[in-house]
């Protein structure tokens, strides 16, 4: 899976982000069941209580919900909700730091937007 736990950030947050990624990228469909805390814990070799904390963070946000006695499921509309949240973060997380690095290297705004266009074409 290529996912390594980063020991310099709270693990429960990393688990929540990983589940978010699974929902956004369609590996976990809406109304499907989320792996149990023990499955998550063994997979990443982490503490089961930490795994449970990551899951309940998303339950609190309405991304996941509990079915009594059965388990935890992905809520309908979760994917749209997460995409909106990630788009808001995108500017701060990627655009701002890209511009800072570009300034350091003397790349002009014009050159930068050219590079973005070139990058977007790469996959076509």
């Amino acid at each position, binding site marked *: 899976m290529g996912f390594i*736990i*980063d*020991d*310099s*950030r*709270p*693990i*429960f947050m990393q688990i929540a982000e990983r589940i978010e990624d699974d929902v956004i990228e369609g590996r976990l469909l809406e109304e499907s069941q989320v792996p149990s*805390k*023990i499955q998550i*814990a*063994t997979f*990443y*070799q*982490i*503490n*089961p*209580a*930490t795994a449970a*904390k990551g899951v309940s963070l998303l339950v609190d946000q309405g991304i996941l919900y509990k079915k009594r006695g059965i388990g935890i499921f992905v809520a309908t509309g979760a994917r749209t909700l997460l995409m909106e949240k990630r788009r808001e973060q995108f500017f701060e997380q990627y655009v701002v730091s890209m511009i800072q690095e570009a300034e350091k290297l003397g790349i002009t705004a014009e050159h930068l937007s050219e590079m973005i266009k070139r990058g977007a074409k790469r996959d076509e």
Partner: protein
Amino acid sequence: MSNILEVQRLTKSYGGATAVNEVSFALEPEKIYGLLGRNGAGKTTIMHMITAQLFPTRGEVKVFGENPYENERILSRICFIKESQKYPDTYRVVDVLEAAAAFYPNWDRDYAYALLEDFRLPPKRNMKKLSRGMLSAVGIVVGLASRAPLTIFDEPYLGLDAVSRSLFYDRLIEDYGEHPRTVILSTHLIDEVSQLLEHVLVIDEGKLIMNEDADALRGRAFTVVGTSSKVDAYTAEKEVINRSMFGGLASATIVGDMTVNDKKQAEALGLELATVSLQQLIVYLTRGNLERKAVEV
């Protein structure tokens, strides 16, 4: 729920040397704790007092609300896997399992034998003929299969290869998930176990210097790197736990959650910021006096 274990101002002195100095903490049920610190910090001495194998010089130990000394009922609920466990001369691996079966009320025989196979332990072999790694594996089998409400592993993986260590973590997580109990992992090798821990206790020079939720400590400290005058300006009124220099560059590690202001200030000064891992944080906090002599039991 009430605490599984409480120690109050626990102290152990040998002549003039103090191995454990006024240590107080409490353990809650069904959590995995890390008892961390360098060799000779006092971890093993603390565990010997908790398990009634050593009398404290001062202070109080309560396990399941009672004094554990000569208290058979309490002791049968504690499984202590010692690094230096001695066995009778004639004992084979199976004999160790049978002795454990007689002692621990929650012993799961089928699980114990399944674990023997997992760790590829020869049941009929004499304990004296086992390698260091195999001896550690027998300890792990007993520790897991005992399902004791308080299970303590002291440096459980000496001599174990990477595959067996990984197997230990997998089995511990699964079995703890199905049969929750309080586990203490005592070790000076923090990197591999850190993500299994819910809570950490750090011992240094006989004192308890940290008692916190493990996840809360991740990202609690951060390092700034840049020209030394700017790093000095930035760290002027902050708690610095590590500082190093190379040429005109300096790096300083600061305890405290990184705020948006911290970030802006560092950026304005042209400093680079990086969060510090749990392991690195503990290394910084415990390396203080490198020359000090370790107190051995």
